């Protein structure tokens, strides 16, 4: 069965087709919303919302873009809108630690863990731009569309985010060298 046929069946409400699409794309959807949300529980909520929206909108999917791209955009929008709603409710930003409790570079897996934790610790505005640009490969124009900012603002935020990440990671490397690798055993 082609993906187009699969999508058509899912649009008709076929449970097995929807499950197949979910199995195929859930890791991609979850990854982007998890990184935007910086929180496991929120990420699950956002991913679920993204899937609900996508399945609801499937009959309108015309195939102009790749399905994965279309779904990815829905996931990003769902996460960003949910965060905006939460921000409106809280009227404050959650406190962000200045330093990230991550350890020295020991393996790719550990490097990924360090990066993920550093991403979680970035201020939200910077994190969104950094994830969309450096992780997800959006252009500044696309980021501008999604976030409602200018391409120039997107660039500015990106450079600050990269610098902040570098600062956090290098501080940790220095601390790890001072205190020894075992100091990071709790990671």
């Amino acid at each position, binding site marked *: 069965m082609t993906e187009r046929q699969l999508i058509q069946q899912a649009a008709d409400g076929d449970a097995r087709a929807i499950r197949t699409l979910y199995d195929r794309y859930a890791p991609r959807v979850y990854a982007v919303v998890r990184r935007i949300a910086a929180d496991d529980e929120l990420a*699950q909520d956002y991913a679920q919302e993204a899937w609900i929206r996508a399945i609801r909108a499937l009959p309108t999917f015309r195939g102009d873009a790749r399905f994965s791209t279309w779904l990815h955009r829905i996931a990003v929008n769902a996460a960003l809108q949910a965060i905006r709603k939460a921000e409106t409710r809280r009227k404050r930003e959650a406190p962000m630690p200045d330093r990230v409790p991550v350890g020295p570079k020991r393996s790719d897996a550990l490097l990924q863990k360090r990066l993920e934790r550093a991403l979680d610790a970035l201020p939200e505005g910077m994190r969104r731009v950094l994830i969309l640009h450096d992780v997800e490969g959006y252009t500044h124009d696309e980021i501008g569309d999604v976030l409602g900012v200018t391409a120039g603002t997107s660039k500015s935020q990106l450079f600050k985010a990269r610098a902040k990440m570098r600062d956090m990671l290098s501080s940790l490397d220095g601390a790890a060298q001072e205190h020894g690798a075992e100091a990071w055993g709790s990671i």
Partner: protein
Amino acid sequence: MGQHLNADTLARLVDHPAEPGEARHLAQCERCRTELTAMRDQTDALGALPELLPPVGDWDVLEARLRSEGLVRDRGLFDRFGLARTPGWMRAAAAAVLFLGGTGVGAVLGTQGALPTAGGLSGGDAQFAQAATLESAAEAVRRAERDYVTALTRYQALLGTDGEAGAMADPSRMAALEYLVAASQAAVRQAPADPFLNGLLASTLAEREATVQRLASRRDTWF
């Protein structure tokens, strides 16, 4: 050599060309070159971050939401048991029965006996009430599904091959309909604001009304 390049400038140089002054500085300053290399490595590593698996049980939660919003239909269930031509109102009522557990339906439809009492519905409720985990709840739903399909198969046979009023006697049909109405009403009592369940109840009531009118019409002709 001048001042070192600041962090924002180095971040820009990750994927933008350097201005002539910046390029001259980089050519002479090992510290800035090292920092720029580190920032490029960091950016490459971000781009290579893997996809992440959603938590275990994520699909079960999503599937429940999709069903509650009417975005999923189990075409396979009816097709699998040769019930593709089952009338729409019966499918709707089936969902209400499934909601309650469905275990009492097999008894009433299989025997064409007396309608179940309120206790007949509670058996299905108990299955779900006792389900302590998502897996056990799913198993209870699967059991209810099997019971219901068995009952629906019998009902289909009684109705005849066209799925409408056929071989089944109207009193038996009415008895089964009364049960389905009761099941739908019980479902609505549990979730009074649920538009889907209210829709099921309305469909079943409409079918019962149509059957009553058909019976009344036949009596008029007979007399």
